[in-house]
């Protein structure tokens, strides 16, 4: 089942409240998104940990309900 961009954003914000999030629906099918997430909480984490934090926020939907989310994570001053 496809997910809405707003739902993805809301889930991420629930776990990472300071996140600045840009979501793009790549194919217009509600199933292939790209997301850029910027948060101060990523400081000191490597990319794997940063992505894991976002995946954790999505509570198991990544790889299931949410088929494709190309992810880019950054800290505010990078």
């Amino acid at each position, binding site marked *: 089942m496809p997910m809405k961009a707003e739902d993805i954003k809301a889930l991420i914000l629930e776990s990472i409240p300071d996140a600045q999030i840009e979501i793009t629906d790549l194919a217009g099918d509600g199933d292939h998104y790209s997301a850029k997430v910027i948060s101060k909480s990523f400081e000191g984490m490597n*990319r*794997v940990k940063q*992505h894991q934090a976002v*995946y954790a926020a999505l509570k198991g939907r*990544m790889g*299931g309900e949410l088929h*494709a989310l*190309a992810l880019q994570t950054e800290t505010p001053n990078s």
Partner: protein
Amino acid sequence: MTNPALNEIDQIVKNNDIVLFMKGNAQFPQCGFSSAVIQVLDYMGAPYKDVNVLETDEMRQGIKEYSDWPTIPQLYVKGEFVGGCDIVREMFQSGELKSLFEEKGLLDAA
């Protein structure tokens, strides 16, 4: 209940310098994300092992548990999880992947 594939995955990761767990194999990737990483690895020219996770359900599930990472492909270098497609692509573009391979002495043969 522990997935028996976890042990097998651990062995593969530890016994190969560069391993890509993917959908399909290097000759016939069965997913665009896996294919993208293969292109990067082929370009880099370092030898790598490809593992097709679609061969068994245990492997397909186990690889997600092994590094607590929900998607495939997954790249491992010298026993360490490097990332999935997005991270590999980003590291390739920034030159970090090349530095990592050089640092680990994986480009000498090329």
